[in-house]
């Protein structure tokens, strides 16, 4: 993975006596102290992070945490007080006016919380705005805009005005406007926050679908942790202008950096982010090509369980045998397990969210087998582990 976007020591101070405020900040004074003695507000303090090519990077925080200031410093809608923003290694903060326009025109596009569509322009002209600014000729920009609108699922609204569309549709236009520009970086400022919950979920799905094909580098601002966990490849949590923690959704959930993050994740619906691989445990298994009924029995006795999973030499999953059947084989002095293998075991992939398998887990007695695409047995999911994970306890083998 290469870093598409790098932010180094980025700081923003609002107010008049900025040099004084910077000194105080360097001396380690708190935001409140700086406001009191210099009359300046620290928006963002010494932020450092990287966004990789093709990832969705969610900047998460409550209002006043500096996340909006942060995203606006990336395209310099707000001028940073100090620090650097690098895109493909090029430092944005040192660009002159014209170079900055070029970067804004070609490298990144922004999607806004309240859509920010131009009310005097039709949907197609709104979508074409970025191209129009760049001087793309009319036929080409209309074609590209039309394609972008199709991409976000808006057919036949080309000549309507924004006020004639619902909120969800308007934000699709906002997204299409950004996509039409074909820039590699999308800056999405609370893009779905103004939508109702159902529309928001649709748009999140839509964004994930689009991202599968487009592989944009997306910086997404959100105040909603569920949204962040749902769409983010990585999440950065901000508080009072400072970065509290950066990590994958799993890292955030399993290793919260401090009390603040912990309080945040307390009320997250864990079933939405935990996948089968998070809750699976190591299975006890026998190799059908090698082991007979006696070995299978021994494994069960050793582990105090009543059934054991069966794989072949390539560790491909075959099925499960239970103790009573194995006992009868031993009595009949059989050497092979083949005749008693139950093959109707539910299987799932390691990436499946737990929500999708919850119902089956609670209704079938046999634990799920987790297999990869080559059908190799990776682990099994037992009911207790799922419940433990949802309730926030450590997932361990002993459950």
């Amino acid at each position, binding site marked *: 993975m290469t870093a598409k976007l790098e932010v180094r020591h980025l700081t923003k101070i609002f107010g008049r006596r900025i040099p004084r405020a910077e000194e105080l900040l360097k001396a380690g004074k708190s935001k409140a102290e700086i406001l009191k003695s210099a009359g300046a507000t620290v928006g963002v303090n010494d932020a450092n992070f990287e966004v990789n090519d093709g990832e969705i990077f969610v900047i998460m925080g409550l209002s006043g945490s500096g996340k909006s200031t942060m995203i*606006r410093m990336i*395209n310099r*809608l707000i001028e940073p007080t100090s620090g650097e923003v690098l895109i493909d290694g090029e430092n944005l903060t040192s660009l002159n006016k014209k170079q*900055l*326009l*070029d*970067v*804004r*025109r*070609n490298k*990144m*596009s*922004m999607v*806004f*919380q*309240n859509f*920010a*569509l*131009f*009310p*005097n322009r039709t949907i197609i002209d709104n979508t074409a*705005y*970025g191209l*129009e*600014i*760049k001087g793309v000729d009319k036929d080409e920009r209309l074609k590209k805009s039309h394609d972008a609108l199709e991409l976000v699922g808006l057919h036949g609204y080309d000549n309507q*005005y924004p*006020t*004639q569309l619902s909120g969800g549709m308007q934000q699709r236009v906002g997204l299409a*406007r950004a996509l039409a*520009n074909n820039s590699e970086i999308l*800056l999405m400022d609370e893009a779905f926050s103004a939508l109702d919950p159902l529309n928001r979920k649709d748009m999140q799905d839509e964004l994930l679908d689009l991202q599968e094909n487009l592989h944009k580098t997306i910086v997404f601002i959100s105040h909603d942790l569920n949204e962040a966990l749902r769409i983010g490849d990585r999440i950065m949590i901000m508080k009072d202008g400072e970065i509290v923690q950066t990590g994958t959704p799993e890292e955030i959930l399993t290793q919260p950096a401090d009390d603040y993050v912990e309080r945040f994740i307390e009320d997250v619906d864990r079933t939405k982010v935990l996948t089968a691989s998070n809750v699976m445990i190591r299975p006890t298994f026998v190799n059908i090509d090698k082991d007979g009924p006696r070995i299978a029995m021994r494994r069960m006795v050793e582990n105090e369980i009543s059934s054991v999973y069966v794989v072949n030499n390539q560790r491909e999953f075959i099925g499960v045998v239970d103790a009573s059947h194995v006992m009868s084989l031993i009595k009949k002095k059989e050497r092979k397990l083949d005749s008693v293998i139950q093959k109707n075991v539910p299987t799932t992939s390691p990436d499946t969210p737990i929500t999708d398998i919850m119902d089956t887990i609670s209704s079938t007695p046999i634990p799920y087998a987790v297999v990869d695409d080559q059908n190799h047995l990776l682990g099994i999911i037992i009911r207790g582990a799922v419940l433990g994970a949802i309730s926030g306890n450590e997932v361990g083998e002993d459950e």
Partner: protein
Amino acid sequence: MNNIPQLPVSSWIDKFVDWLASFEGFFNAVTNFIGGIINGFQWIFDLLPIWLFMLLVVGCTYWLNRKTKHWTLIGFEIVGLLYIWNQGFWRDMTQTLTLVLTSSLIALVIGVPLGIWMGKSKVFETINKPILDFMQTMPAFVYLIPAVAFFGIGMVPGVIASVIFAMPPTIRMTNLGIRQVPADLIEAADSYGSTSWQKLFKVQLPLAKSTLMAGVNQSMMLSLSMVVIASMIGAMGLGNKVYFAVGRNDAGGGFAAGLAIVILAIILDRITQAINRSKIPKS
């Protein structure tokens, strides 16, 4: 109190006016330029037969209101213009119209850029606001005195005085319109890499248009209110008729001409408002 000497404000201003008078060449050029515009309008109006003029006004109203037929307005226009013709005020009406159109045009050409500048610069706005207040509240008669000194008598000083008095609404409303454009739309325009000019012509002005046009409409109405005052320095037209009626204590003649001004005002107001009516559907 009597010990404090009176400030020689009037002599200062006299000196200033005298000093300005030394730029005679400049004022002559302005006089000729404005005179040219006035003559142009007047030439067109004199050329138009009355029936064609009426047809143009009615046609214009009909076309601008084609979605929401305004038959009463069209009826009023026909009756009103016939009244003016019937009273023998036709040429006076066209002269007044020339004065109003010329001063509105100049107010528009000067006022809109100033308004845009104010909308974009906090400093310029702060400097300009008291000047605009001054222009609007200073009794309009006062402008006549230097106007005569620089531009002689006739239509031109009338236009100049009207412009000074009528321009502030255009400037103010343009400023307001530019400032009222929602911040996120400005951010959107910036984030896609618009230059200042692109932002102005593609986003700010189109969105400020209806506010701006309301200002133009106000300027037009204010310059119409100047016609009687302008007639004191020799501007021809309906104002002149009213002014004479005042001098002769002729209530009937005064009202007859005053009514013509009212009719003209209503027609101008309704037409400019119709131009302003937004074509963007409301949700």
